[in-house]
């Protein structure tokens, strides 16, 4: 009996059926339970496969905010694309730079120009990283989780390492990510030493990211 169940360890149904009379009501019941167990195990596998799924965001808001005694300047972008791989924690953002909109047309033109962000040459900014505390985030359970992202940010063709904090909010199928972090313009080859840009544009810009993801 023992050796047999060892040789066929997964077959609990047979084990129970051996104990129970084959044609009894309980025998049939156990056979049903057996099938049920298999179904539950498979649905569990299916659910964890779902957890590994990729989340895609084509609905986002990125805000640049620069503050100096001379003036506050902000720009908004609603056209970024992002993905999160909930299996390995990989995160990526692609941001079309010409999608940043300013109140003033002149500022927007300056922003795009070669000496500022050169958006014709470098039309997209990119963030590629990994959520390092993936264990702390349960994508299958509603809630708000703190996330740490480490990776690389590329603006104007210059790449720098970053490590930023954010939050991930799970609400059913909908996952939103939020983060506020600082970007030092000089790190990306954007520097002004004199004139209005030097006095009116902050050396360090506050970047606010808000993205809504759907499974895909």
């Amino acid at each position: 009996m023992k050796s047999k169940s060892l040789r066929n360890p997964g077959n609990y149904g047979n084990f129970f059926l051996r104990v129970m009379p084959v044609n009894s009501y309980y025998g049939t019941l156990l056979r049903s339970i057996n099938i049920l167990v298999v179904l539950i195990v498979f649905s569990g596998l299916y659910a964890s496969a779902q957890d590994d799924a990729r989340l895609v965001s084509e609905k986002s808001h990125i805000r640049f905010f620069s503050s100096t005694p001379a003036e506050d300047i902000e720009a908004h972008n609603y056209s970024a694309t992002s993905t999160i791989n909930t299996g390995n924690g990989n995160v990526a953002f692609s941001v079309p730079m010409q999608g940043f909109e300013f109140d003033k047309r002149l500022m927007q033109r300056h922003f795009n120009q070669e000496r500022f962000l050169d958006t014709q040459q470098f039309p997209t900014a990119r963030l590629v990283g990994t959520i390092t505390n993936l264990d702390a985030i349960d994508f299958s359970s509603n809630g708000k989780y703190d996330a740490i992202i480490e990776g690389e940010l590329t603006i104007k063709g210059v790449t720098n390492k970053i490590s930023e904090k954010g939050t991930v909010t799970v609400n059913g199928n909908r996952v939103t990510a939020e983060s506020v972090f600082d970007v030092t313009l000089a790190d990306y080859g954007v520097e002004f030493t004199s004139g209005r840009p030097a006095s009116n544009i902050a050396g360090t810009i506050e970047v606010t990211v808000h993205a809504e993801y759907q499974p895909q």
Partner: protein
Amino acid sequence: MKRKKIIRVLIVLVVAGALIGVGAGLYMFFMPQRNVQNLPVDFQVTASDLTEEFLNDITRANQKYLSADGESKILEVTGKVSRISENFNGEKVVLLKDDDDKAGVSATFTHDTNQAVNELEPGDVVTIKGVIRSGAYYDQDLDMFVNVTVEKSDIINL
């Protein structure tokens, strides 16, 4: 007497010049954003051809469609409506993409033109006018094709 007259004329000229200078400066500073819908169209394209152009040679397509000051080309794009959504600014977003294409054209409307999207349904073939912001490409890190983005859109022909 004559000298006084010359001085008076000079003062008037200097003041007028200063006023024009300040006026031009203020105009530049407060210059309103372009009204894309009132501007002439630079290119008429299909969504398929436009995405294909970017996927074939993105550097060349960027040079052709994107301007250095960010005031890029005005396009009339014709394609099949594949998806209708809304962005975080409350603007409608219409994705023009043929079923066989790898990428499409994502057209963002404005608060003024949102209304026009109410008439659209997925499957409709439509022509949309707007300004291009970025091209299509395959992104290795996203592991997906990124769409062309067009903004300040309105429907030209349904």
